[in-house]
């Protein structure tokens, strides 16, 4: 069985890869078909993931674990929105209210907390690690903030030059990091394509 799953994965991966590199009609059709199948499987995976989430919280409630009341809230909200979406459709007013009046504001609040968290983390950074790179990181962050922040007197003199100077280093550094990440991603994908890493089929 494990050889079969590996063979299917390797064949599918190779077809999709060569479909990108060699845009032949037959390969493109196969690639599109496989990608469509993958989209359907991914949609089913969401249902499985949500079912797993419900099971985790039912288990927490059953054991009366700490903060299990949030599990009750999650399951009730999930059933309500899932039921409303199923009966009324995803574009109905009720479902839109659930998204626009609850999910969006909650996520925006988390974004606001994130801003505070980052300021706090930056303040503590020198206590956590005191080395040259940390000092450079903080100095660049502060200079960048000075250059982009609005002031009552208008832009700070020389802000354009400062930004140009910072971008020269940050763009170069970012490109270097991205090249490294791309190489890492390429090699990781090749290991999966060769069947060396098999994160599927219980191997």
């Amino acid at each position, binding site marked *: 069985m494990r050889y079969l799953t590996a063979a299917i994965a390797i064949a599918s991966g190779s077809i999709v*890869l060569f479909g990108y*590199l060699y845009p032949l009609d037959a390969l493109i059709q196969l690639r599109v078909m496989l*990608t469509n199948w*993958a*989209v359907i*499987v*991914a949609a089913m*995976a*969401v249902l*499985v*993931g*949500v079912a*797993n*989430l419900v*099971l*985790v919280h039912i*288990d927490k409630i059953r054991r009366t*674990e*700490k*903060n299990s009341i*949030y599990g009750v809230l999650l399951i009730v909200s999930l059933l309500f929105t899932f039921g409303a979406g199923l009966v009324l459709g995803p574009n109905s007013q009720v479902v839109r209210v659930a998204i626009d009046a609850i*999910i969006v504001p*909650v*996520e925006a609040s*988390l*974004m606001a*907390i*994130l801003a505070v*968290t*980052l300021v*706090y*983390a*930056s303040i503590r*950074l020198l206590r*956590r690690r005191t080395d040259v790179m940390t000092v450079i*990181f903080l100095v660049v962050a502060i200079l960048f903030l000075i250059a982009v922040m609005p002031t009552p007197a208008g832009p700070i003199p020389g802000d354009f030059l400062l930004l140009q100077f910072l971008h020269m280093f940050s763009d170069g550094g*970012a490109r*270097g*990091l*991205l*090249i*490294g*990440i791309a*190489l*890492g*991603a*390429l*090699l*990781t*994908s*090749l*290991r999966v394509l*060769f069947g*060396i*890493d098999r*994160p*599927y*089929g*219980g*191997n």
Partner: protein
Amino acid sequence: MALIIVIIAALLLVAFTLLRRRSPAVLRHIEAFERLSHAIGLAVENGTRLHISLGRGNLFTARGASALAGLAMLRRLAERTSVSDRPPIVTSGDASLSILSQDTLQAGYKAAGAEEQYRATTGRLTGLTPFSYAAGTIPVTRDENVSANVVLGDFGAEAALLAEAADRENTHLIAASDNLSAQSVLYAAAQDPLIGEELFASGAYVGAGPSHEASLHVQDVLRWLIIIVILIGALLRFVGASF
């Protein structure tokens, strides 16, 4: 051109893997992986848990590679913690990744001869959007007797919330992402951030096999090739050659 790079990388990977089977590689010291090894031992002895957060890397996008690197590491961590009373908890923000994390956990236990330890509820989908994922993951750090957090995969700036939660609970945190925003916030917020492609080196450092060590060598070779090409290109442009 892309095909040539893929073929060169594939040939080098095979060659270096065969070479590494005969002689294991000597890897440079990375503090974060040293601490991870220590944290695993401590978690097993203390009866606490590891929490592994695999991020939101959708396997149908270019971000999927970081998720695959996370899964390779998870496999080794599952094997190494299989003797613990408390199995590690894996959280992810993508449904397919969540299923693969369950499968990988099960495979890790099976390889360690402890398949009965596996629980499907230890591989969890905690949210499908960046902040819902963070909000769903923070309680795991707080409530599940976690002593070390491994945050490894595709994240955005929300990774800072996970780092802050780990810090507040006084638990250990090792963090790596393929996303530049996440890398910068983790540099500020995490105790042990991994920068750039160090995310993809995690398998080699936890002993996932010679192919992972070979991957590092191939990356080094390709990196030098790219540096040489960039320098030659800059030189040609400097002397006024058009190409």
